[in-house]
């Protein structure tokens, strides 16, 4: 008990002396360098943290299957391939994209063939796309990862495509392609896509695009949907 009474004045003295010193420490003027560093730290806390991309694309070769579902007279099943050179993380050039379409007569075409009476000297003819090729500027603004069921991660990317296109068409009647004649049209292909990275080399992409082309001075369009498997050559993880 005596010890406590002996210690109390000592503690009080320490507080009296040390208190103002401690307070003076808080008000101590800081140098401009320290102030700058402090400001940087405060700004860094506000900035988002960007990780390096796990998957870097470089030379991409893609093989696709897809469909041309909107034409009145045929439905196309497409197979295609493309080569894309990725210039930066945000920008790429799909140097060539080629698709061949296996066309199937639509219900409308079958009905017209059954019911229609052709004009004399003019057999019924229905234009259909046989192939199309395009070159695209690819902008890839969105890259990231999503948690799959809170158990694993999927790396993905959203991209947009725009570029000139060539469309080859033939006009068929019931005897297609026996009396068909090929015509070539120029146009524009615009699209959006989603890529899921499976490994550093392989990825799966889904494309939705619109081919706009000119035939006999009138604009036509064909919606295209495709799914591809893409191989990334020459780039590590």
């Amino acid at each position, binding site marked *: 008990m005596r010890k406590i009474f002996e210690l109390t004045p000592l503690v009080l003295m320490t507080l009296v002396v040390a208190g103002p010193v401690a307070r003076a420490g808080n008000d101590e003027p800081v140098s401009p360098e320290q102030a700058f560093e402090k400001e940087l730290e405060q700004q860094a806390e506000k900035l988002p943290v960007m990780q390096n991309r796990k998957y870097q694309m470089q030379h991409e070769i893609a093989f696709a299957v897809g469909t041309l*579902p909107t034409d009145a007279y045929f439905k196309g099943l497409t197979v295609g391939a493309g080569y894309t050179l990725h210039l930066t993380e945000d920008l790429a050039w799909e140097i060539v994209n080629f698709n061949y379409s296996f066309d199937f007569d639509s219900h409308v075409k079958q009905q017209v063939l059954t019911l229609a009476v052709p004009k004399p000297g003019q057999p019924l003819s229905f234009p259909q796309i046989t192939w199309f090729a395009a070159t695209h500027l690819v902008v890839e603004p969105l890259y990231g990862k*999503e948690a799959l069921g809170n158990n694993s991660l999927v790396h993905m990317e959203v991209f947009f495509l725009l570029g000139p296109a060539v469309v080859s068409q033939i006009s068929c009647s019931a005897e297609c392609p026996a009396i068909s004649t090929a015509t070539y049209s120029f146009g524009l292909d615009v699209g959006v896509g989603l890529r899921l990275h499976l490994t550093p080399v392989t990825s799966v992409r889904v494309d939705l695009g619109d081919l706009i082309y000119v035939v006999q001075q009138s604009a036509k369009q064909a919606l295209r949907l495709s799914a591809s498997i893409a191989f990334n050559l020459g780039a590590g993880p």
Partner: protein
Amino acid sequence: MKTRGPLCGALTGLAVLTTVAPAAFAQSEDIEQAPRVFSIQPRPYRLGHEFQLGIGVLPLDAFYIGAVGFASYTYHFTDFWGWEIAGAGYSHNFETGLKSSLKSNYGVEPVSNGGLQVNVLATTSAIIKPLFGKLSFFNRSFIYSETFFTIGIGLAQKSNNGSSFDYLAGVLGIGLRFWSGPALSFRFDIRDYLVFAQPLPDQVLLLLLSASFNYYDRPDKPRS
């Protein structure tokens, strides 16, 4: 002095290899068998009561293109799944010119099912949301995103010349959501409606852009 011959060296090397190799192999097996560790952050945004307003297009039909106004209410049970209790769209249709082209070129006109156009799509659907994450935007900022799938049933109303018919419909879809904040997100949906107007269903593709307003009323209950 006796020196060790090459045979002795080879034997020693072999002995070392036979001793070390299984150990090294065991070590690589250990590494391969080690569990993969992922760092999954907690979700900053959670859905509770979601009200969706959107505009879309029905691009698939050869005779018309539909401009769609769409609205829905979804209750989200967990982070993994929700129920779109009601989702309905009204389509204002524009002719593609095929009808007049058929008449002028071939002298035929669509009748019966060929003249019907989708006006209303109303469904109730399960929403499965297995993917949630964040995407960097041009490497400068990031946005939170979610990928979800839709499966449901409902009705489709088709009409022509003032008479309308209701058909059973199913819907399958996939969508991407981008968060703007806890209460607002934007989503892009691709939905394929299967309309059973005939034994073989018609397909009605809907491309939809929407704004979603979210009210999450259980902030203290983290959900799996």
